[in-house]
């Protein structure tokens, strides 16, 4: 076995090229502890960077070049990801979950016309896309959504409410699942739309939540409620066939359930906590001499290593073209659960200081206090811990004669991205 990411000379040359380009193009952005503090101007700079990356095929490096992606292999994609990570950014460098999951779904399920229409917009950074799944009465049971789309001539009329949507600064499109056959059989009554957000009848209203995410790329943003009131959308925006939405959801959820985590991202919180502990004193003694503090830090460290290695394994398997089954949800489950024990470890190490966002007393410019909330908020998006367990059970074949097969992925996604 080899746990090294060793680059060929060709890849190293590419790395130099990416590094130099980013040094010239990545704007100065403050490292907000609370992502909600990101201003419209700062967001505009991130979008500009996205378009510039898009011109080079570096925004969606693994997606096909004919649609505006980079057409690159996993190694090249990784290099771009690694170099952006130095700036605490990812591909894309802003929240674009609808684009990420929607473009993959369109690759598998879209018509040629839809690919040509939507993919270049997404892959070059022209549009940013939210994903719309949850509703007030539909959470873990996604197939029960009741937002409806009813055929009316060449259009559909959409009515309903979506929650936990998006981020701070609006979106040009939304990738959403709706019910197209109110009397149809469960799982055979759903469809997906790529919905322009400037259509009349759409209202976006921010939710008041324990924590809102950001625009760094991977994090979820400020969350909104989105109301659809007789929104008229052309039928060409329905992707994957009417009432075939649950099949499309297989692709979407396959990626959302832990498949896409970068293998390179360092555990920033581990570094922050270690840095704090090494510098702090308590009762006149270095904090690290306290055996309880040592225990808490070691717990944190071990948890962090396991999460890292499970994601790394998934990444390496994908790089070798191996089909993942339960592993995505397993890594995601570990990440979610260990976030809670990490938060407790931080509380043990820092005491009430971990809970304070006051500029004078907050640790690491407030990142620690935000993490105390984030660890709780992180438990539910992309499927709760319980949903991950349901997926693991099906994929392993617990209590079943056969193992459930994963959702269909575009060939490029199997290889990474």
């Amino acid at each position, binding site marked *: 076995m080899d*746990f090294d990411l060793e680059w060929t000379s060709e890849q190293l040359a590419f790395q130099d090229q990416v590094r130099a380009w980013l040094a010239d193009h990545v704007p100065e952005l403050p490292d907000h502890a609370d992502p909600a503090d990101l201003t419209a101007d700062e967001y505009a700079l991130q979008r500009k960077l996205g378009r510039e990356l898009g011109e080079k095929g570096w925004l969606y490096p693994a997606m096909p070049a004919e649609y505006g992606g980079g057409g690159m292999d996993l190694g090249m994609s990784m290099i771009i990801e690694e170099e952006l990570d130095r700036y605490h950014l990812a591909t894309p460098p802003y929240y674009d979950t609808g684009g990420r999951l929607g473009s993959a779904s369109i690759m598998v399920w879209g018509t040629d016309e839809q690919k040509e229409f939507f993919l270049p917009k997404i892959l070059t950074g022209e549009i940013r896309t939210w994903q719309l799944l949850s509703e007030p009465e539909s959470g873990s049971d996604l197939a029960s959504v009741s937002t409806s789309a009813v055929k009316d001539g060449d259009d559909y009329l959409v009515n309903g409410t979506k929650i936990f949507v998006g981020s701070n600064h609006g979106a040009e499109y939304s990738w959403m699942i709706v019910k197209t056959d109110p009397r149809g059989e469960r799982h055979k009554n759903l469809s997906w739309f790529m919905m322009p957000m400037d259509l009349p009848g759409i209202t976006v209203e921010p939710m008041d939540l324990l924590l809102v995410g950001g625009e760094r790329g991977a994090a979820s943003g400020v969350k909104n409620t989105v109301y659809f009131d007789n929104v008229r959308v052309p039928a060409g925006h329905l992707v994957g066939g009417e009432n075939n939405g649950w099949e499309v959801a297989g692709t979407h959820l396959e990626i959302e359930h832990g498949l896409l985590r970068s293998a390179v991202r360092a555990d920033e919180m581990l570094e922050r906590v270690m840095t704090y502990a090494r510098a702090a004193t308590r009762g006149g003694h270095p904090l690290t001499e306290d055996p309880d503090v040592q225990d808490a830090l070691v717990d944190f460290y*071990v948890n962090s290593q396991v999460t890292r290695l499970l994601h790394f394994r998934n990444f390496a398997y994908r790089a*070798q073209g191996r089909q993942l089954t339960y592993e995505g949800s397993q890594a995601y489950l*570990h990440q979610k659960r260990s976030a809670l024990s990490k938060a407790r470890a931080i509380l043990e190490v820092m005491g009430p200081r971990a809970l304070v966002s006051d500029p004078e007393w907050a640790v690491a410019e407030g990142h620690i206090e935000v993490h105390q909330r984030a660890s709780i908020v992180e438990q539910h998006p992309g499927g709760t811990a319980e949903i991950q*367990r349901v997926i693991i059970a099906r994929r*392993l074949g617990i209590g*079943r004669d056969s193992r459930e097969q994963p959702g269909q992925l575009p060939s490029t996604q199997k290889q990474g991205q």
Partner: protein
Amino acid sequence: MDLTLTEQQMMLQAAVRELRERDYTKEALVAIDSGEESGAAQWPGLVSTGILGSLIPEEYGGVGASLADTAVIYEELGRGPVPGPHFSSGVFAALILLEGGTEAQKQELLPAIASGERVFAVAITEEDYGWGPGFIHTLARIRGNDLAIEGTKLYVHDAADATDLIVATRLETGKIGLVHMPAHGGGVAARPLPGFATGLCEVSILQASVPRSSLIGAMEDGWDVLERAMQKASLILSAYQVGGLSQVFDMSLLYSQTRRQFQQPIGRFQRVQDHVIDVVNYLDSARWTTYEALWKADEAREGAIAAMHTAATVASESYYYGCNSAHDVHAGMGIVREYGLTLHTKMSRTLYHYLGSPRYHRKRLAQALGL
């Protein structure tokens, strides 16, 4: 980056698996565990595969394999779990001799370990159990050309099956001396300890005398030698625990599919599913921390020691808790001895403290991280 086994490792794995499935069937393992059989019938077959010499360089009659290659063997043995002195002799004792033995000692003893002619056990711990030099009280006094040794070693793995011992002693200088001596006779007696553990023994040493040349690597403190040997041996032990867990997972998954209650497989119940999922989570956590630590050790990478302590912590805890979860899946059937799950439960307890408990490794990890 490549997380698959090499072709050679796959062949090794297949060979050990073939041996295990032939000689160490569940029935055979249960019989050995209960004391009905001694394991002597299977031992020559195990020795003939050459695995006892895996870590021993070719110049001393071994194979000279890497830690990762050796771990492949031990992961497969752990699936049994195949008990016996293979680890004590072929891994732990061999590593001590390699790390600290004089050239003469290596030439004399390592080929005999590799061929199975001699079987070593390593006697470190005593009544006030612990894995540090402070816990060594057995005395070794210089008497002319001899060492006079006196003391009681406890929880010594596999001593009853051994021909030779390496005993950690306190020298008159206060340093630790590792002494090679016969496992039986001349004042030395090994007695298996009955109970919920596999292969643990008491070794009493009364007025024993061995030549001074039996001191391993006379120059350096014996604990330093032991420490280096333990750092490597611990990785192989973790791999053995990973093997055990993977068997425990396979048993649990199969049982969830075949055992029916309330007119359906019990694995249809999410309460039961959760227990099986816990086992696979323990398994994969132990597996990947162990594999990365092996790779770091073989490649002499930065952080190899921290990775080893991480793996030891995770593997020991995972095997322990994974067996608990497997018992939740199996309920009453799991404690029926002939079913075979308790072989693992017992082994998970036996190995929990071996070469340092998770608590010990966490402390050492804190040091390795500079805390």
